[in-house]
């Protein structure tokens, strides 16, 4: 019988912070602009340029540290990590090794079995991102875009406390929500604003010693992370079963192929010659600064879920989904604040919003419609100005471009026709044109009325109130 193995996992999570400007200069962090348009002497490593710390980066890092129960380092420093690569204009990255801003924290996750467990956070440090290399096949040369150079990152290093892919995903979800709630980042894995490297080793169940670990990179989705963990676990167990050794190395995950390959082994590890950056003054975190950041901490998910239950009386499942994305929760609360109809707002979010997000592949963070417009739409629907079908149609337009529902309904003539005389005339015509359906209905096939309602709505271009159509139809039949 085969041996039982335990998987031991620790994560290194990089999060791009949502500051307007870079960590050590005033350049914009905006994504997707023309190459090298957001650069200056500092973020391109020009001789004589000097870094100056963006205070917002420090505040975000501390806020994340407080929310993950870390000790905040009151006297910290930045260190230089020296290595040559063209995406790194100074040939050193400004990071933190010796005195990272946060240490000794942890977050609670729910396990598969329904229990709770704490995943420890070893440290959180601040650092700068590198530029981007672009290979030009046509000219056969490599070009560098330094727009990303100097974009602020925090790296959250966990303890090796996770034992399965489920726990890893639960931990990442927890981090993502905390950071999103803080507004410190949008935490999108696909776009790289949240990146996770997985350190994994296996050992015989019951063993106290850790096995040799590998580090897995290039994981761009929760699915990829799960697959990579399963794959690496099996690879390592196979090696051990064959009596071979796991080599300490960095591996790159190829999600398309569903396998990983070795990038570099420990023997190739560079000596980064870390030392405190003499261009930056020590980071001193005062009591006042800590108090200020603490006072600004938002309501996190657990508290929010509790409050929603008490205040809004909506289903637990809705609460779970809505609070699962900061932007959703914001839209929910702001819309309710205008229209005071929590159930209806929740229905719009749980129904049409989720449907369209899936259909159009839109992240919650990118939802565009405003709470004011959603509230207005609900009001128009409630007061019978538009029917449900029209409301859905208008919502879809709002979803794409946040138009004013009132204006849109007006401009496109979508108001329900409540002129009974006109409606009656149309229905009479529909009855005259569809004798078979009339016959069916009269002979007891109640469903036949649905067809007649449909025909009427079609003739009215969808603008009639279905309830009224039903009522008149029944009268006339």
């Amino acid at each position, binding site marked *: 019988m085969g041996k039982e193995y335990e998987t031991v996992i620790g994560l290194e999570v990089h999060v791009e912070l949502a500051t307007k400007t870079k960590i050590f200069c005033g350049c914009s962090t905006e994504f997707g602009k023309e190459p090298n348009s957001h650069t200056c*002497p500092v973020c*391109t*490593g*020009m*001789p*004589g*340029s*000097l*870094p*100056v*710390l963006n205070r917002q980066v420090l505040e975000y890092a501390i806020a994340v540290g407080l929310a993950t129960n870390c000790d905040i380092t009151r006297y910290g420093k930045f260190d*230089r990590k*020296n290595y*040559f690569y*063209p995406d790194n*204009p*100074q*040939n*050193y990255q400004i990071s933190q090794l010796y005195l990272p801003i946060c240490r000794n924290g942890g977050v609670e996750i729910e396990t598969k079995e329904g229990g709770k467990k704490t995943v420890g956070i070893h440290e959180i440090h601040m650092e700068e991102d590198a530029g981007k290399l672009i290979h030009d096949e046509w000219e056969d040369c490599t070009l*560098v875009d330094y727009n990303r150079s100097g974009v602020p990152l925090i790296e959250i290093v966990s303890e090796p406390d996770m034992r399965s892919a489920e726990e890893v995903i639960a931990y990442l979800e927890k981090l993502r929500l905390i950071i999103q709630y803080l507004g410190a980042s949008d935490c999108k894995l696909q776009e790289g604003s949240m990146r996770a490297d997985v350190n994994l080793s296996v050992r015989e169940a019951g063993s106290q010693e850790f096995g040799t670990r590998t580090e897995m990179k290039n994981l761009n989705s929760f699915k990829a992370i799960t697959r990579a963990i399963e794959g690496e676990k099996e690879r390592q167990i196979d090696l051990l079963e064959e009596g071979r050794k796991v080599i300490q190395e960095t591996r790159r995950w190829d999600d398309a192929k569903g396998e990983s390959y070795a990038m570099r082994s420990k023997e190739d590890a560079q*000596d980064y*010659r*870390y*030392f405190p950056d*003499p*261009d*930056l*003054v020590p980071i001193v975190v005062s009591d006042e600064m800590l108090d200020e950041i603490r006072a600004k901490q938002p309501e996190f998910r657990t508290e929010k879920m509790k409050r929603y239950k008490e205040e809004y009386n909506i289903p637990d499942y809705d609460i779970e989904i809505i609070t699962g994305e900061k932007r959703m929760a914001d839209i929910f609360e702001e819309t309710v604040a205008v229209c005071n109809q929590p159930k209806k707002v929740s229905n719009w979010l749980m129904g049409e919003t989720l449907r369209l997000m899936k259909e159009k592949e839109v992240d919650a963070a990118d939802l565009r419609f405003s709470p004011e417009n959603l509230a207005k739409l609900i009001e128009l629907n409630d007061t019978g100005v538009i029917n449900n079908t029209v409301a859905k149609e208008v919502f879809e337009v709002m979803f794409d471009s946040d138009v004013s529902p009132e204006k849109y309904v007006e401009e496109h003539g979508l108001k329900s026709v409540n002129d009974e005389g006109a409606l009656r005339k149309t229905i009479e015509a529909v009855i005259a044109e569809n004798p078979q359906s009339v016959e069916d209905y009269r002979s007891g096939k109640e469903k036949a009325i649905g067809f007649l309602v449909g025909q009427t709505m079609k003739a009215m271009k969808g603008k009639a109130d279905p309830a009224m159509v039903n009522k008149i139809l029944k009268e006339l039949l």
Partner: protein
Amino acid sequence: MALLDMTATELAAAIKEGKTTAVDALNEVFERIEAKEDTYHCYVTIDKEGALKQAEAVQRQIESGELSGALAGVPVAIKDNMCIKGMLTTCSSKILGNFVPTYSAEAVINLQKAGAVIIGKTNMDEFAMGSTTETSAFGATKNPWNTDCVPGGSSGGSAAAIAAGECFYALGSDTGGSIRQPAAYCGIVGMKPTYGLVSRYGLIAYGSSLDQIGPMSQDVTDCAAILQTIASHDAKDSTSVSTQDTDYMSALEEDVKGLRIGIPKDYFGEGLDEDVKSAVLHASEILREKGAIVEEFNLSLVDYAIPTYYTIAAAEASSNLERFDGIKYGYRTKDFNGLHNMYKKTRSEGFGEEVKRRIMLGSFVLSSGYYDAYYLKALKVKALIKKAFDDAFSKYDIILGPVAPTTAPQLGSSLSDPIKMYLGDIYTIAVNLAGLPAISLPCGKDRNGLPIGLQLIGDCFTEKKLLRTAYTYEKARGAFGKAMEQTGKAAALPEKEGM
């Protein structure tokens, strides 16, 4: 009075009074440069056209009353490790041989705002690594007092240009004595301000925690005027300090009554030239006569300053110079095979021997397994050296001593023995390690007629006290004379060894 005999502040006053113009002064300087530059080689870049335009513009501003500062209209030379927008900035290195910055150093901008006319960029030891200006990739600068001798370094071009009358004043930078030592060798005044007083933005870094830009001038009055102009808080430099009273001209008074001056016995031991020793002690006597209380004391830790300095400065330099890789600007090797080979060849060909020596030394002391034993230990010793100075300044206002153990050595005599060259920095580098201000000013000549420098060291941000002491001494000493008055060689040098 001939224009070239004027100090910078005298010239500015003459221009303001309409006795001469910024353009006339500049033309005189260019005449002098044409006559002497081939001999001394003070400059890497001379921007005649740009300087003339600047002089004309500044002259108009002076006449319209927009500019009236103590340096308005005066031609200045800038050490070639300070960036000037649109002007070649090389650090006297092949690797930056084609580098033209798109921005100017903050200190340079401050001078330009005050109406400075920039003549060009002065020669230096490559990346400020050296004590003789011989490690420049563009050839050595010669000492105007004796062209067989070095001008000192690394700001040797700036010092020689002032001594030769090829500019009225200059900016230098001082990491371990690079302003004060060439000032001493060339018979001029040079000051290293407190770390953080002058912005380092745009100064191409050598040892970031030690580098400081400072004035080089004909006399103490000019020095105060320059410092007053370049000292500023700069949000672009994290290590720049704010809230300092920078009215340094107001400190120029002849008054040292009751001033406590300490002379470190450890600065007068073995290796100090007898002529230098007696000139420096004579200067202390003059200050005593003027009312200062002068006494000897033990500074301690002096012997540790050199290894500490060469560990920290080299470590920082090894990292600071990583950006010179042939990717973004500067020299790139012609033929290469892949990225790694490009880096290797570019840097092997682009850097000179002394720079490579310090990069290797710095990389070694930072490498894993040696970091604690070398770099971290050096930082601890640095803190102890600072403490030794703190103790001294609890008893004294000013510490007085020599700048260098000898006067200017002969060209070619230093580079063959780097350790000996490093030992020549013994009296200057502790000041950088402790972040203190210090001034070097002429206090005599040796038996061969070469200038001797007096060093006054103050506590952090006591530049005013330092300037007042230096000014008092300078007045008592009287005129020192200029190199350009010398005809040919000052005096016969002793026969070179082995000749």
